């Protein structure tokens, strides 16, 4: 294998993203779903950094920093919600929370 180019990193990012999506779609445990979302975010981060490196624009890396910060906030709030959900229904099965049905 020759030089590792931008394309490789991007392909890796796409694969990781897809894995995250499949996890979100397939798992019923709310926490696992959350973790899959984190995988997706990471894949996006990878893409950002790749492009930042390739174009020499620092903005991409700064973006990643913010993504990490926001992901932290989101994880905190999301887990708090999951805890609250668990208190209500004694479970974290996403299928149980279907009151939006109509």
């Amino acid at each position: 294998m020759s030089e590792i180019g931008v394309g490789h990193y991007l392909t890796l990012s796409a694969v990781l993203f897809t894995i995250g999506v499949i996890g979100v779609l397939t798992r019923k445990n709310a926490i696992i779903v959350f973790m899959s979302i984190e995988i997706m975010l990471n894949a996006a981060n990878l893409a950002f950094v790749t492009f930042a490196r390739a174009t020499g624009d620092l903005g991409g890396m700064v973006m990643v920093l913010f993504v990490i910060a926001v992901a932290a906030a989101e994880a905190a709030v999301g887990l708090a919600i999951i805890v609250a959900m668990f208190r209500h229904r004694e479970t974290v099965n996403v299928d149980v929370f279907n009151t939006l049905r109509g």
Partner: protein
Amino acid sequence: MSGLAVAFWILAAVAVLASLLVITSRNPVASVLYLVVSFFCLAGLFVTLNSHFLAAIQVIVYAGAIMVLFLFVVMLLNLGTPQWFDVAATPLKAAALLLGVAFVGALAATGLGSFEPVARGPASAISPDVLGSTEAMATALYSTYYLPFLVTALLLLVAMVGAVVLARRER
């Protein structure tokens, strides 16, 4: 093969494997731990891309703080054992797999593998070696991106308050 290439391939393989294991493990605790592994790999990939600062941040914040939080919640809610309901219906699994493959396939078909972006912006100002260093990042963060930085700080405050409120026990 250069050391960079070797590192990339190893790190990439492990990352993908760990992610797959995250989404297929029956035990939530195992999933969390696999995710940590994946994050570490990603941090390594950041290093190969010369963004050392972000690699450090990835490890400290993501793998260190967020995953620990996840683990706390898993242990708190006593979800440490495989859950009976955690199997999706086969049609759903098939659909998800299909869509995923379609997604990657579509991207790959447009030549993602040999993508070469055109350099834009003030690229020549900073050399690639110095690009991801802490010094460069700090300079950018506290000058050009100062406002988003402050807003993010506010966001974190709000999130903290929100998390406390949401997880409070109803009396």
